[in-house]
């Protein structure tokens, strides 16, 4: 059912050319008929207009189905949708006039047909923008000189390569060459400095007076926050760079990064914004920042699957970096060698591990020393003795260890206590005390 709808939707780019052809043909027939030698062509206009109307309605329906499936820019989509539907309605109206109103002025009718041609051109252009991108066919594209993307941070120009592309990408849709909401445009440096209807947007060297900076740093719920209407906001890196550009670089258009003597943080931000550094920025400074800096960022997901296939429960504790919580179900019947290899393949990512109640002896668990990033380890209800301490006493991240109902003795515990990081050792019901 859904596939049929999608299928029809994808026919839109094909079907859409039918009304274009039919309606243009209707226009040319009508105009040519003004020449007395071809007067008879006028009789064909209603039929061709009818075909144009029918195919325009079909193109609208298919176009709607297509719009359901893809991520189209809502502004462009809306323009195309409204103009397309208007075109279909217009074709129908012209047809009706031609058939039902025999006294209608043929001059005005031709004029209306020409107006419809303008509408076809507009709607078609919007459709093309949707498919190919709005800079595919524009006057600007004809004259613009493209600057090559810089290959290194030091070769970059702060405004031209960094700040301007960000502004164009995040603000250009409404404040660009096309639309100029609030009479403000980021199309080039001069226009940016011209400001908006509310006054200057950027005041060189004065962050607090720069309206642009205020708008992008408001609370996202604030009605003056930009970008508005739920469009993608600027990232912390981007905001930082814009602030630096306004304040330190006095909003100059041509400063190079080298001349600015920027600090490392700034250079890193530039690298990330330019896509020269593939590591994503931390989600936010307060959450998980540097907490897991020692754990590798990525992990082949098939390694996790093969551990799961061995019967272990693997929970994802964090995506970036990949941090895992691994549990062997109690009384699993598995021996250490059954899953050891798979576990060690993801070893640097495991921070929580639960091997309780599985009849493990000390020597079964010698692999624990190869899980260097463990923070919480549950080993309760296993026949373990003080030997287990040897594997664990040097773990630098281990903070909680559960040894309840094992045969570990006070000697083993005190050995473990020498690990300064290990804050909590659970030693309830030790078998040694019975």
């Amino acid at each position: 059912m859904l596939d049929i709808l999608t299928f029809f939707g994808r026919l839109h780019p094909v079907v859409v050319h039918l009304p274009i052809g039919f309606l243009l043909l209707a226009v040319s027939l009508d105009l040519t008929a003004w020449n007395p030698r071809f007067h008879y062509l006028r009789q064909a206009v209603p039929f061709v207009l009818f075909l144009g109307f029918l195919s325009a309605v079909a193109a609208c329906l298919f176009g709607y189905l297509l719009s359901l499936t893809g991520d189209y820019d809502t502004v462009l989509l809306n323009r195309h949708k409204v103009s397309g539907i208007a075109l279909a309605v217009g074709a129908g109206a012209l047809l009706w006039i031609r058939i039902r109103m025999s006294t209608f002025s043929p001059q005005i009718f031709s004029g209306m047909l020409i107006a419809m041609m303008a509408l076809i051109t507009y709607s078609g252009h919007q459709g093309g923008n949707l498919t190919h991108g709005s800079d595919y066919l524009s006057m600007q594209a004809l004259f613009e000189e493209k600057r090559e993307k810089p290959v290194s941070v030091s070769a970059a120009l702060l405004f031209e390569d960094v700040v301007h592309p960000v502004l164009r990408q995040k603000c250009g849709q409404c404040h660009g060459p096309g639309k100029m909401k609030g009479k403000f445009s980021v199309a080039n440096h001069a226009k940016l400095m011209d400001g908006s209807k509310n006054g200057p947007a950027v005041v060189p060297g004065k962050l607090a007076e720069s309206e642009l900076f205020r708008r992008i740093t408001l609370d996202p719920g604030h009605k003056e926050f930009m970008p508005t209407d739920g469009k993608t906001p600027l990232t912390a890196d981007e905001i930082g760079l814009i602030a630096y550009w306004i304040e330190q670089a006095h909003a100059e258009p041509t400063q190079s990064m080298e001349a600015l003597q920027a600090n490392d943080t700034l250079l890193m931000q530039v690298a990330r914004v330019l896509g020269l550094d593939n590591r994503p920025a931390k989600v936010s400074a307060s959450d998980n920042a540097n907490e897991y800096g020692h754990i590798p960022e990525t992990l082949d997901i098939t390694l996790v699957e093969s551990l799961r296939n061995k019967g272990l429960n693997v929970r994802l504790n964090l995506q970036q970096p990949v941090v895992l919580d691994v549990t062997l179900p109690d009384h699993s019947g598995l021996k250490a060698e059954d899953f050891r290899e798979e576990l060690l393949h993801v070893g640097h990512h495991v921070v929580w591990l639960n091997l309780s109640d599985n009849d493990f002896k000390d020597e079964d668990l010698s692999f624990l020393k190869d899980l260097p990033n463990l923070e919480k380890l549950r080993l309760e209800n296993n026949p373990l003795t003080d030997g287990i301490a040897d594997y664990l006493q040097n773990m630098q991240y281990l903070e909680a260890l559960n040894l309840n109902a094992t045969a570990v003795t006070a000697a083993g515990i005190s050995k473990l206590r020498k690990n300064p990081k290990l804050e909590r050792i659970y030693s309830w019901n030790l078998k040694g005390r019975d």
Partner: protein
Amino acid sequence: MSHHHDNENNFRLHTPAFDSLNKRLDRRNFLTKTSLGIGALALGSLLGKNGASGKIASSATASNAAIDDVISALPHFAPKAKRVIYLFMSGGPSQIETFDYKPALVERYGQDLPGSVRQGQRLTAMSANQSKFPMVPSRYKFNQHGKNGTWVSELLPHTAKVIDELCIIKSLHTEHINHDPAITFFQTGNQLPGRPSIGSWLSYGLGTDNQNLPSFIVLVSKNAPKDQPLYTRLWGNGFLPSEYQGVEFRAGKDPVLYLNNPDGYDGTDRDEMLDYLTRLNKLQNSAYGDPEVDARIAQYEMAYRMQTSVPDVMSVVDEPDEVFDLYGPDSRDPGTYAANCLLARKLLEKDVKFVQLYHQGWDHHGGLPAGMENQCRQTDQSTAALITDLKRRGLLEDTLVIWGGEFGRTVYSQGQLTPTNYGRDHHPRCFTMWMAGAGVKAGFSYGETDEFSYNIVKDPVHVHDFQATLLHLMGVDHERLTYKFQGRRFRLTDTHGNVVKDILT
């Protein structure tokens, strides 16, 4: 059993009754579902996506991808807690007789509540027409306990002993003044029925850690006064798929009915029977595409696994006497609050994600002293025992314990104030809850009320803030766990809620 219908065509039944299933898309169906469907879709877009066409669009593949995006982004943070046990004290326990110590009230005994305190705030219809609002202090003494000398009422002697594990929040406030909206608000984020409960959201977002038990289990005490009812919507799935609803275990010896095989049936071919049933259901669903059928398939399979897992987890024969002594004498009587606390610990040991206990009877409009004494006697020891038991087993490392009701109670007496008896009306402007375990500060107290325990003077915590904090501890950003329903994205905290960072470790 002798025939194995491995070929699906053989498996399909060709009888008149099944014909409509077999045809799937015949001519008429095709036309209704395509041409009319297309027209309806176009019309729907012109009319602003209302009604049936909106429904069709919402089940399109694009929105399935959106669901996957929401789920695959989880967890958003490294979780501190893997499991939650939420002890819901239904009815609204008085903060004044438990944790919010207000010694200055003693001198104001019987005086009218100053208008400057009430500030014209609304009261319930039950006490709004009183000619006087005589203030009444706690009848019960408070003593200091634990490392920080925290004041705790003598009604809670056992809880006082584990005070160093608790993170007490004295500045909760809610928007609702009556039980039903207040409790629905607490459990689902909205005062009106229809939203998923906290446990359902977590179960939906984070999945299960134990395939053999539901990830969201509800236990209701049998030994509590049933003055205010509970509704299954409090643990309902709302608009989420049905398999994420809380599963209520019955209070008593047989918590899940019909888990035992009937007489004369040994259950050996149950597996095969369910396999065929699943295939039949899938066959039907390939034509209808109803998510409720998927949910039913999942529930049948869960019930099958519960035939072994539930008797296993319910059995307390292996628990030593010492454990029953810890939880109190009621713990030997299945279905009581104490027995439920013990059962909850066993469920948590099995990595059930969200266990919710309800204990009713805290609604003391009158006869508060006798009522509070009884309620505390029923719950205090086993609540403290649960903390102690989880702590020594190492489970408090990654388990979050929550205790609290839906609102607090007024400083003034509802009805006649006598030297030995008084009542308190509903009070949404301040009340006390506590959390303990994974990720929250132990031996910590947060927020303050004025000397009347009427208004909050420091660090208010709204119900949505509490919900946001709970989700945060489980690794979930409350703003990003959303579900699109009837054309908009919903979340537990609606458009509100701030994580209370100050109580986090």
